[in-house]
């Protein structure tokens, strides 16, 4: 951005006054995040290494990282995050290109279907999936009517239900960042590459993919961090059979009254999120 091109008649404030104003501008937001986000999380970190009498202990982490059951719980969370992100990406990436080509009412309608689900509570959407996936639900009825299956498939309270629901609920967060980048893609780069003799595969791999990478990184990071820590979706669509870190935390606080262990589980989930943020920041800084 070129500064001060037309600045001649405008009195420019002194640089340190400008810096002071900028500090004043960020202060409220930084204060909120520091006091209501950073400090509480630091406290959580502290609670996770305290026993019930207030003495230091590593017992919560030993229990969490040393017992096969809880390692399974951590894996369940990661698996939910990975599968949801992978499936959402495979659907969203090509779809974003069609979306970017759409014009007029079709484009408005397609985009509205991305925004509209955000207005229905996660709780209500998860509940809608329990209706759809029941043995006598719509999906089984349709599949039987079409002669694809003879007997209803048991889907509700299975991992299939969990993944279908999670993909459905988090999809918009994958499509939107990718769409934002694809819509700005300058078609002339791809044309230039093709003119210079690149095959469609090469054009895609060397031109289109690198140019859309920021959107991919943003979408993948967002959907993974949302789905790895999802609470309502596993609670309603699969229940006790698939314990995750999120459901373990809620149980430790709301039922077992075991804040130390809950805090440790929270810290593990937080660590996963921090790794995702760090990785996505690092990757998006990579020169294109």
């Amino acid at each position, binding site marked *: 951005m*070129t500064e*001060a*091109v*037309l600045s001649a*008649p405008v009195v420019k404030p002194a640089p340190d006054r*400008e810096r002071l104003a900028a500090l004043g*501008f960020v202060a*409220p*937001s*930084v204060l*909120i*995040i520091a006091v*209501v986000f950073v400090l509480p999380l630091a406290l*959580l970190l502290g609670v996770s290494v305290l026993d019930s009498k207030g003495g230091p202990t590593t017992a919560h982490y030993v229990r969490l990282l040393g017992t096969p059951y809880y390692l399974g719980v951590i894996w369940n969370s990661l698996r939910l995050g990975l599968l949801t992100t992978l499936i959402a990406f495979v659907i969203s990436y090509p*779809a*974003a290109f069609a*979306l970017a*080509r759409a014009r007029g009412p079709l484009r408005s309608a*397609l*985009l509205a*279907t*991305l925004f*509209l*689900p*955000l*207005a*229905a*509570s*996660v*709780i*209500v959407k998860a509940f*809608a999936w329990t*209706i*759809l996936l029941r043995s006598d*639900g719509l999906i089984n*009825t349709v599949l039987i009517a079409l002669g694809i299956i003879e007997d209803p498939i048991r889907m509700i309270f299975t991992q299939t239900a969990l993944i279908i629901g999670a993909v*459905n609920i988090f*999809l918009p967060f994958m499509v*939107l*960042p990718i769409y934002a*980048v694809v*819509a*700005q893609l300058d078609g002339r780069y791809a044309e230039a590459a093709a003119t210079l003799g690149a095959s*469609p595969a090469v*054009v895609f791999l060397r031109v289109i993919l690198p140019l859309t990478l920021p959107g991919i990184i943003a979408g993948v990071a967002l959907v993974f*961090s949302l789905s*790895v*820590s999802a*609470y*309502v979706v596993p609670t309603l669509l699969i229940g006790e059979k698939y314990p995750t870190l*999120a459901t373990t*935390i809620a149980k430790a*606080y*709301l039922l077992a009254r075991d804040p130390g262990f*809950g*805090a440790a589980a*929270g*810290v593990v989930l*937080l660590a996963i*999120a921090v790794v995702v943020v760090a990785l996505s920041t690092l990757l998006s800084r990579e020169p294109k």
Partner: protein
Amino acid sequence: MMTRAAIVVCWVLAIGLALFLVLPLAVIAAASFSPTPVFDLPLSGASLRWYGRIGRLDGFWPSLFLSLQIALLSTALSLVAGTLAAIAIARGKLPGATALGTLLVSPLMMPGLVLGIALLQYFRMIGFTATWSALLVAHLVVTLPYVARTMIAGLSRFDFTLIEAARTLGCTYAGSVIRVMVPALAPSFLISGLFSLLASFDNYPVSIFLTDVRSKTLPIRMLQYIEEAPDPTLAALSTLILAGTLVLLLISDRLVGLHRMAGTAD
């Protein structure tokens, strides 16, 4: 330069995606007209009885008002604070502006449930027990990152010399901000406002640890209804919210275009 087959695949996926996203919403809308208390599809008739029952749900009105208050207030405050911060960060006059931006956006990627338990302990420790204020402050952390993220992205594409140009042409500073910057950033304001409102209004994992028996937000009430006695009243309520949002989207599409709003979502 896409091959014909690739284009077909893209379109099939886009249409499939749209149908997949709308499917549960259609089920909710259909169930809300069910003449019986069970969700049987296809419906054996149509009835509006569940719409009449919404207002009679146990504790519905206080929860609705609480959720609306918290969502509107936290969104308004976040829009002001987040936009100011985004201006400072996008203008790059601050040392470490990028790091500050990452800090402000980071709560978006952090598990809500973890924030919930952390705040529960923190508020207890510092003796901050007023439920309403605790909810508002907590929801600021939910809504502010949406605004910061969208406004930083929007402002980084905004050419600040346009404001100086407007002033050179005789506009006052406030006038040039209102007549140049605000229209250029309208899609960013709309999308971050919409996302913030919905994120707060639908928040479960943070609120669950901060509400008490007397003041429950709407999502917490809704999960309670589902667990106690699921009947189509909840579907009727959701259908009304969906209809309201659809109207908002139609107006936004007319005013600034949904593609411009979606284009700022990176």
